[in-house]
């Protein structure tokens, strides 16, 4: 039996109220909200966050890591390697990028479903558009992670993949020249006429492949370029059991959208339910799954619905500045320097893996790791202590209004980790008035800044909420 052995999604904390757009841009907007990646997040960091949650339930490592995004941090260099490092995957685990279309990550799921071994397919996307555009208001930001493998005690299959089908067609419904910050779209009505037959053909072919009838399907999720195409497709297929696509809260999240929909399907499925994912992107891809008896075991990560219901607002002005559309004068302080590639490579375990050292004699934990014990007595006698999943408590904090930040001021805290170790570091996703001594925080993988095209990834603290 082969299928999905773990899944998780990541929705960033901030929400843009679409109603705030027209007052500034003079047009656009609409009802509801969209998710907004913070200034310190990108496709890679959101994929890492989803991947961390997915990996937490497993006793095994994937053989393969696949990453899909429309706007990865790097071209000409694999992005999946940073995710591989942050997830502390085995060196023998191949890490590959899948390309730059919304279809990419789902392609990874399909490839893994037909392949052998285990594969973790992660995606992350920040959807952008010109101010006032539909792409801006209808887009959303998210990360998703789907683990595929054969059933095993270490990683039992939670949803068996029992049928798939794909249809491909060349037509231009949206496009972007590599390097451009925004996509452009053709007439949505044209896209709708193209996608409806593609979706219908793939849907029915996948049911045949799975050997099930349409009336056996408990729920269908549709990942479509727009809510209108999704609704038209559901109507064409005669479906009454289509799950919420969160377009009123989250938006359309590009390469992460099929993963988001797949996760939501599985989060609402009962054992033995047959559920179907329909993804419309440059064709149609359909996956038919049967929930295993153990499906509930997969729900250890925050669900899409729970994450969608959480979050806090961000103003349209801040949203525009975070995306670089509105350039705000920075503090009159030196900008950060480019990260040294050689220095970063030497400290991979720390910078990406957040692995501290622990003194076997005194038990003290050192962040960053030390080669020489804190008492100066022993050299190269330290053990390793992974800290990324260790919670911490704020010992003291401050607000720095002068230091350079892409989004000042910097909220900065000295945090003490459970089981030992202290590190002063930035607190993200919070307003300065929210921070207090004694608050609990978790670690999250973030983008500190990008200089000369090199993203500088490291860890920050995030307040535990709820």
């Amino acid at each position, binding site marked *: 039996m082969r299928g999905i052995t773990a899944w998780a999604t990541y929705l960033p904390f901030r929400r843009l109220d679409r109603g705030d757009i027209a007052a500034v841009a003079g047009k656009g907007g609409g009802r509801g909200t969209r998710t907004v990646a913070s200034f310190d997040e990108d496709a890679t960091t959101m994929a890492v966050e989803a991947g961390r949650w997915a990996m937490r339930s497993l006793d095994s490592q994937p053989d393969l890591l696949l990453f899909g995004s429309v706007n990865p941090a790097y071209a000409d260099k694999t992005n999946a390697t940073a995710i591989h490092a942050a997830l502390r995957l085995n060196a023998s685990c191949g890490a590959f990028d899948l390309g730059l279309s919304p279809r990419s990550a789902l392609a990874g799921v399909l490839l893994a479903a037909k392949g052998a071994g285990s594969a973790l397919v992660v995606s992350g996307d920040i959807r952008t558009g010109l101010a006032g555009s539909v792409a801006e208001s209808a887009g959303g930001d998210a990360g998703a992670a789907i683990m595929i493998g054969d059933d095993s005690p270490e990683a039992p299959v939670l949803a068996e993949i029992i049928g798939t089908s794909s249809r491909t067609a060349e037509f231009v419904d949206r496009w972007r020249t590599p390097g451009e910050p925004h996509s452009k779209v053709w007439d949505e009505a044209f896209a709708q006429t193209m996608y409806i037959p593609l979706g219908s053909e793939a849907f029915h072919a996948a049911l045949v492949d799975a050997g099930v009838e349409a009336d056996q399907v408990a729920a269908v999720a549709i990942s479509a370029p727009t809510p209108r195409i999704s609704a038209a497709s559901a109507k064409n297929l005669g479906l009454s059991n289509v799950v919420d696509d969160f377009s009123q809260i989250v938006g359309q999240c590009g390469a992460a959208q099929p993963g988001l929909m797949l996760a939501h399907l599985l989060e609402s499925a009962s054992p033995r339910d047959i559920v179907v994912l329909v993804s419309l992107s440059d064709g149609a891809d359909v996956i038919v799954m049967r929930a295993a008896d153990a499906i509930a075991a997969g729900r250890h990560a925050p669900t899409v619905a729970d994450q969608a219901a959480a979050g806090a607002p961000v103003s349209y002005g801040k949203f525009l500045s975070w995306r670089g559309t509105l350039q705000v004068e920075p*503090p*009159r*302080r*030196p900008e*950060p*320097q480019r*990260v*040294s590639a*050689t*220095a*970063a490579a*030497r*400290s991979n375990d*720390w*910078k990406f893996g957040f692995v501290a050292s622990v003194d076997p004699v005194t038990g*003290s934990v*050192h*962040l*960053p790791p030390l080669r020489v014990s*804190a008492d*100066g007595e022993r050299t190269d006698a330290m053990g390793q202590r992974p800290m990324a999943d260790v919670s911490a408590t704020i*010992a*003291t*904090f*401050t*607000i*720095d*209004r*002068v*230091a*350079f*930040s892409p989004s000042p001021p*910097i909220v*900065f805290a*000295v945090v*003490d980790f459970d089981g*030992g*170790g*202290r*590190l*002063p*570091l930035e607190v993200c996703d919070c307003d300065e008035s929210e921070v207090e001594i004694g608050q609990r925080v978790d670690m999250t993988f973030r983008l*500190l800044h990008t200089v000369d095209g090199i993203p*500088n*990834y*490291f860890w920050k603290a995030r307040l535990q909420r709820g």
Partner: protein
Amino acid sequence: MGSHGIKDQIAIIGMGCTRFVEQWDKGLDDLIISAADAAYASAGVDKSDVDAYWFGTAQGGMSGITMARPLQLQNKPVTRVENYCATGSEALRQAAYAVASGAYDIAMALGAEKTKDSGFQGLNATPPPNDGTGRTLTAAAMFSMVSPAYGQKYDVSSDEMRQATAHVAQKNHANGARNPLAQFQREVTLDTICGSPTIAGDLGVFDCAGVADGAAAVIICRAEDAHKYCDDPLYIKALSFVAGNGSGLTDPDYDYTTFPEIAACAIDAYDQAGVTNPSAEIAMAEVHDCFTITEVVLMEDLQFSERGHAWREMLDGRFDRQGDMPVNVDGGLKSFGHPVGASGLRMLYEAWLQLRGKAGDERQIETVNPERNLALTHNLGGYPGEMVSFIAIVGTELD
């Protein structure tokens, strides 16, 4: 093994100090020439009489050539040193040891910094290429964590802490207002201090040191030679330095209410000088008031106040110019200004004036007498948890 110091082996025979201010019309070379020429004149020596030079600058330039070129020194040994904000003091320390060793007869230590050419706010350091995981906070942010921690530990309300730190700013501005070399020669009211915009945490603009350009220089010789050059030299009683290991940043036991590097440095300095009762034996102190709260905590780390008492004694005026223990009579970093590499020697310059009764009627303190004729300068670099500390003790008499 031990830290023995060089008590009474070295004499200070001349000093020079520029005004510390935004010197838009002067470059680093000009500042070096001004301070050096003032020191030569003060000691009554020619440039050629000085055998060796130590030049402190944090970011003004690399190598001894940064000093040798503007002064056109002829085949002299010039060493550039850097030790964060304690750079100027480090230059003195190295020069003093070199003369005490017998290697040279006369040496100059000069500190200079041109901070205002960067165009940025505050002080800035350019880190070497790195992995990008280090902190990027301002020093203000790191020091802003001290006041709340201190208040919590000693049950002092935030309002009382605000009053105590505001008193530091008011005192040091009042002192600077009398000093023609200070950056800010203006008294400020408590309302202005407390109402100033915040920089980091609760630290306002008036809680932060002035950022200035400037230079200061000292000329030293062996103690037995001092009277060849100077009727009233000062003698070095102690030079102590501690470089922290950064443990405060990562040790959960560190509580941000003290600077352990400085407490350790003070113990060593008093031991070198043979000082057993600092408050009774030391007539004045110039300390590193980079932020107002720093000066409060320093009073405890330097053993002038009991733990938890400095805030009260600060409010009571003990450290005022006319108080029992005058601190930062020249205005301190707060109002004299802080050109990084020069500040340690600026502190020594005030001791040079005050202990010898040369500060002028407007500024001369009254605590110096034959039984109490020592001055302490304290110069730190870094921030809470990761700090270097320097302390010098100088006096008018040989023991």
